[in-house]
């Protein structure tokens, strides 16, 4: 029983996956808020996409009678898409270095998906994925929600897989 680099990778991945699970949950909540009218798509996209400059003041007059003013509570968690992709990419590289081929193979589809997703993003001057003008389209909204659920499931499963992998590496070496 020795503490190898592979075991270290699994431990790190375990921690980072926990973070990713948090991101996925946050993502699902964000889109649910959009769907249930709780948030303005501009504010929401500004929180989802990393923005350098502060978002413009939210629309003044449009709340009408249903008015639920949505103070964006998660200013600190702004721009979660790129961190998520980077974290995932990071531990893929770690597994590559540790020659954990099976684990790497399991992660490759998601990595490829991330690359594809980022390549096919709408025209934007800043990094980010979500366009406030199309995000309210029912198809896109449904797609994003489904994406969130699928990722949550994936991260949960991989969390337990990494746990198992870590113990296995620790025990077997």
């Amino acid at each position, binding site marked *: 029983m020795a503490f190898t680099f592979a075991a270290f990778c699994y431990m790190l991945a375990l921690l980072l996956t926990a973070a990713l699970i948090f991101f996925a949950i946050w993502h699902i909540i964000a889109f649910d808020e959009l769907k249930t009218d709780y948030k303005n798509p501009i504010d929401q996209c500004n929180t989802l996409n990393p923005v350098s400059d502060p978002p*413009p003041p939210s629309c*003044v*007059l449009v709340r009408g009678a*249903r008015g639920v003013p949505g103070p964006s509570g998660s200013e600190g968690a702004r721009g979660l898409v790129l961190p998520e992709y980077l974290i995932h990419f990071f531990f893929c590289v770690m597994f590559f270095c540790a020659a954990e081929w099976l684990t790497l193979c399991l992660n490759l589809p998601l990595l490829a998906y991330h690359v594809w997703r980022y390549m096919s993003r709408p025209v934007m*001057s800043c990094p980010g994925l979500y366009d*406030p*003008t199309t995000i*309210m389209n*029912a*198809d896109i909204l449904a797609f994003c929600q489904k994406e969130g659920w699928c990722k949550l499931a994936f991260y949960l499963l991989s969390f337990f897989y990494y746990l198992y992998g870590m113990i296995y590496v620790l025990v077997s070496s």
Partner: protein
Amino acid sequence: MAVQHSSPTNGATHFHEHTSSRPPSKPCEPCCKLNSILQLGATSLLVPQCYPAPWPTDAPTSLHGYIQPGAAPQPMNPMVPNTYQPNRAPYGPPPTGPPPTMKPTSPPTGPPMANATPPPPKADAQCGWAVNSPLSPTEPDCQEEDIECPEPVAGNGPQAPNSYNHVDNKMAGPPQPGPPGRHLGHYPSLPPGYQNTSAPHNATPPMHPAMQAATQPYTQAPQPYQQPPVGPGPAQLSPSLAAMSLQSSTPEALRVVNLLQERNLLPPSPIPAPTPCLPQDLQKINCNPEVFRSTLTSIPQTQSLLNKAKLPLGLLLHPFKDLSQLPVVTSSTIVRCRSCRTYINPFVSFLDQRRWKCNLCYRVNDVPEEFMYNPVSRSYGEPHKRPEVQNATIEFIAPSEYMLRPPQPAVYLFILDVSHNAVETGYLNVFCQSLLDNINALPGDSRTKVGFITFDSTIHFYNLQEGLSQPQMLIVSDIEDIFLPTPDSLLVNLNECKELVQDLLKSLPTLFEKTMETQSALGSALQAAFKLLSPTGGRMSVFQTQLPNLGVGALQSREDPNQRASAKDIQYLSPATDFYKKLALDCSGQQVAVDLFLLSSQYCDLASLGCISRYSAGSVYYYPSYHHQHNPAQVECFQKDLKRYLTRKIGFEAVMRIRCTKGLSIHTFHGNFFVRSTDLLSLPNVNPDAGFAVQMSIEENLDDMQTVSFQAALLYTSSKGERRIRVHTLCLPVVNSLSDIFAGADVQAITGLLACMAVDRSVTASLSDARDAMTNASIDSLSSYRQSVLTIQQPGLLAPACLRLFPLFILALLKQKAFRTGTSTRLDDRVFAMCQLKYQPLAYSLLMIHPALYRIDDLTDEGALNINERTIPQPRLLQLTVEKLSREAAFLMDAGTVIYLWIGRNCNPTFLSQVLGVPSYAAVPDNLYLLPELDTAESQRTRAFIGWLRDQRPFFPSLHIIRDESQQKASFLQNMIEDRTESALSYYEFLLHVQQQISK
């Protein structure tokens, strides 16, 4: 966690599913299929028995074969439609499944088509758009007429040409060689009424029920509206009426039409919107179809039923349309449902005097005390007689709860391009003159503000502060970091500083006469304007004549002109930068709308620039090749459009919410706006010429509901600083059988919605994808009709009567500027056509899709409309094929934004001299843009007709008079949708393609 896991398969995705849901055996590339059809069509293998000859598609050969309508009408018997009526009984109505369930009290006078509410061009003309003044709420007579207004007076309406007259016109078709029996029902055919009289019943037995029914429509449907026609008297008409009422168990809309056999599908007059199958009392108060229209007038009960029908479900709205009579209610409490906030409307039910049940969420609400009193009748205790409950379209003056800040004043900011290129086009003169002429007609009150910014490579502001002796120009050359030199005096009160403004307008054209600056810093100018307007909100009008090439938002030319015709797929339909979109969203947040006037001869990247208007709810005007000397037609257009633009009604800081009965949900919006939430559109400005489309989906089954309702509520600040809410409510029946869904299909609305969906598809996917999707839409719906509704399978391409124009409209869309391929189309033209399809109200976009063709050298007063003492002749609509043209006549084609008057080579000399004022055909000038005002009856009729066509739309269509050999003939002939072109199918070939796909 309150997270809903919704399935993405819903009705509105129908459009998206085509490519994937098609069985693998059907390949998805129409291109290859089309090729094979071209070959098949040549040998006509598919329908050997039906086609004696292919359709003539070539002008010169077909033009000669024509008989002038008046010249040799074949003798005919006006009694014919009646005499064969008894014959039809044994064959019965076409097999169509059970009658609609929701027709208990529908009038027995005829099939739905016959009593459908026709479109009200007349009302439109009368009602005009200038009439903004709302009637006072206490005026009793305004209540009833609001919705009724558009209903035409029987017999006088445009849809009521004499049916025999109509038959007459049909006789102008190609003469029939050969024995009539043999060619019975074949394509270039006898007028419908005649086909069956001599029909040997054994010719093609399975086709007969359909054909017989098919022959009946246009000669009979209009009859109930007719004044006693010239031919038979009322006594002769009555048998046919009787026969029709006998037959009314089969809805007219479901009559089977074999598209391959029936050629003259176009009705003689504009197609009326179908009437929903509602009890008559509800139908009477339902929303005007011009304002609020659904693609399916019968809503399917479940999503799976909708998927089966393969028709798109959606709404088309024209919410801020100028209405002649609009009931306005002032009350301190606006009665709304407590849970879903629906405004009380005619379709709610009163449980008793004190309680009402919401028709959208079914909550039971209390009737407030105030509502018990009816100000119209000044009586107490009759809440159901209140105007709110009597009118499907109503306007409320909103109390202060509906404001988050004091209503904004009307603020207009004009941003003018004054680069060398702009000065060259000479638009500044026209603009300044128009604004000077209309400066008192700008909508507003004493608080109205105006401002001006001009720009080339620098930004020029104009200080118009009261007290200055003349306007002061301030130049900011730091375009990277724009600032406002004197923030307080750039936007000034129009009334206080009118003279300075007028001075400025008079001097502006000369100020930049000698400029040599060629660059354009549009982006910075827009940013400056945004800074100027953001404290108040308002309207920016941007005039741009070239590609912005300096500072932020600079664009590059992306179009390669050589690739226009040959390119496989059109690129660059999406914006190059998100600068304009982001700025538009900022504008939208600050209640600023941006209207774009693009006057350019070169590529301007409208796809990128247009975003500034699209997301800020502005409008886009485009005048390609505008020049004050070289293009007088465009100048006239620009002048007229500008006049309308400056004086039309405007609503500021608006939002529109669309609510619908529980179970339905909104899928996608189309138009110019920003979507704030699932059912809320943010519209910084709303104008009366903006249309919207909404795709709907059915999320929960609508079991045990008889009707569903849709409500569009538009909250806006009027130019007088009043906060107002305009509410439209539409009620539609729910059905559970496919045949009823098909019976309620509204082909025009479906086409309009499909066009919007196809525009989205071309931008997100590709143009060819969008074209495939449109073709598939027609194939799928007709094949679903064939499989699920028709019980007896017959050969041919069968469609229900209400969808008989569907393939034609789809083909028209495929040949529309926005979607056509193979023809050289400038990218900006294409993008502009796409914008128009998205934000034009249905009535206008339809003409751009399928232009109207009239013969106008023989206009008569017969069946004419009478509007304001003017007689407006109503010629018959002709099909868009060269076959209908004749060298001896003159034809008018109304293509929405442009009107062509084509003069045949051997045109009637009387027409030439009396209308055009020229002695002979050779003397017709080449570039003629207006008709001379001659004092002859013919000239008056023609001018009245063209004027009437123009009055029906808010923009000004220019008139092009073209001779047979003029250069513009090509653009005229491009609109001949039913003919074959080098790169596109003819209508008949398209039908064969559709048929082939269906029978696969």
